[in-house]
């Protein structure tokens, strides 16, 4: 059996009174892509926040990263894991950058804080695959000068530059065009195939999941209602809810 990189057992997360995640159980093996799919408010982003250890949430249960439980860890210890061990790309890239500093400064600073050398060639390659032309021009610009789609791709490049073992992606394709979304998922797949990065992608679109996932977890109202291999969930869904989600993916009418 392949080794489980992340293993979540009976996880409960609550914001004050509201229980956002209720008894979630799921895992991802090394080098796999797990997609967590659900509607807004299903608890999928909260689950991601529980993994990164954002404050303001209380947790019961365990989150094992290579066998070590993250839940009882101190905040400082958990922060150390962020960036190098666990990478996070969020839906809203504006939150990831300082809006008025150049990307060049921000990239260098981030890498320096993790003792990683700035590799121009690697960055250039990453930019090209993410459909970003003119690397030097972009590095000289500032986040506020860029469109949302551009900032999102640059945020993805920033997270990928660090080569994290586990990359958490929270609705990163939702604000992008279909073509750009495909380019981004292709890049994630390349990362998985070439570097063996383990990826957890949160999305409301099963179409995206179908394109990239090894495993799929379906969440509804805070619960993981279906979890299995992508083939199982897509081709032999056990729950009515999953079948409805499948039905709602826009289909190209060709006849």
């Amino acid at each position, binding site marked *: 059996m392949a080794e489980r990189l992340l293993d979540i057992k009976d996880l409960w997360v609550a914001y004050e009174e509201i229980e956002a995640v209720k008894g979630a159980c799921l895992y991802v093996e090394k080098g796999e892509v797990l997609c967590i799919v659900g509607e807004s408010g299903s608890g999928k982003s909260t689950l991601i926040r529980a993994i990164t250890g954002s404050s303001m949430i209380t947790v019961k249960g365990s989150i094992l990263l290579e066998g070590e439980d993250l839940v009882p860890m101190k905040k400082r210890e958990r922060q150390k894991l962020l960036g190098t061990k666990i990478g996070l790309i969020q839906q809203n890239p504006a939150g990831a950058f300082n809006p008025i500093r150049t990307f060049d400064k921000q990239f260098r600073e981030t890498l320096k804080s993790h003792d990683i050398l700035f590799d121009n060639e690697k960055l250039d390659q990453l930019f090209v695959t993410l459909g970003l032309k003119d690397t030097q021009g972009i590095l000289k610009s500032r986040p506020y000068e860029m469109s949302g*789609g551009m900032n999102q791709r640059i945020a993805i490049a920033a997270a990928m530059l660090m080569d994290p073992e586990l990359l958490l992606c929270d609705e990163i394709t939702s604000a992008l*065009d*279909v073509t750009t979304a*495909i380019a981004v998922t292709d890049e994630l797949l390349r990362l998985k195939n070439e570097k063996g990065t383990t990826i957890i992608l949160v999305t409301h679109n099963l*179409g*995206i999941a*179908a394109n990239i996932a090894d495993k799929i977890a379906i969440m509804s109202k805070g619960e993981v209602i279906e979890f299995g291999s992508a083939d199982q969930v897509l081709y032999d869904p056990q729950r009515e809810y999953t079948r409805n989600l499948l039905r709602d993916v*826009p*289909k*190209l009418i060709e006849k």
Partner: protein
Amino acid sequence: MAHLLEGKNLYKTYREKAKVTQALSDVSFYLDRGEILGIVGESGSGKSTLLKAIAGMLKLDQGSVLYNGKDFTGMTPRQTGAFLQMIFQDANSSFDPRRVMKKSIMESGRGKKDEGRILELVSLVGLEEDLLSRKPSSLSGGQCQRMAIARAFYSDADILLCDEMTSALDVTTQAQVVELLQDLKKDGRLSAVFVSHDIALVSMLCDRIMVMKDGTCVEEGDTLTVIKHPCVDYTKELLESARRQSIQEISE
């Protein structure tokens, strides 16, 4: 007979300091009554500029727009509002946050005060009456988008201009809004220009497709023809992306 809506050789340039962007370059289109025209393209292709220019929110550099054969180039949004209404991606912020829904909808009627009609429209878009006494912040994205459709209909406008109206919604809510538009179209109540980056979505809804890239129309035609026999590489690329994101076989 004249088309319901027509644009002829439209040009628009954005100038910011030394940077000049040709947002629309010789774009022409038409829309007939009871028809939905889909406009697809990536961000920056000029789709939103086109809609804003039609609605009078932007000044065109060149070209003319016609409603039932009559030139209305240069009209303000307030004037064009009598026959066309925009529906935006972010429906929530298109309503006054301090007003209840009913007031916002009433306002679009230009003095008309017909509560019965509002109730009728709200039920047409599949919402409960009691939502009318709420403010936009307490409605979900999908509910707001439905209210925006009801508001547009209340104004008695002939034409809806929909700018990425489902992009901010999740797949399930999007499917519901699309279903609503399909129903309205069946009843012949809807003539619309539907802008989206998602060609699959457009294929489900539109009679004709126009593909835009870098401010120009690169392909135009009947939906099935464009999808089955795309002429330009760019359209083929869009279709390829859409196919990769679809899960056709299993959903049948």
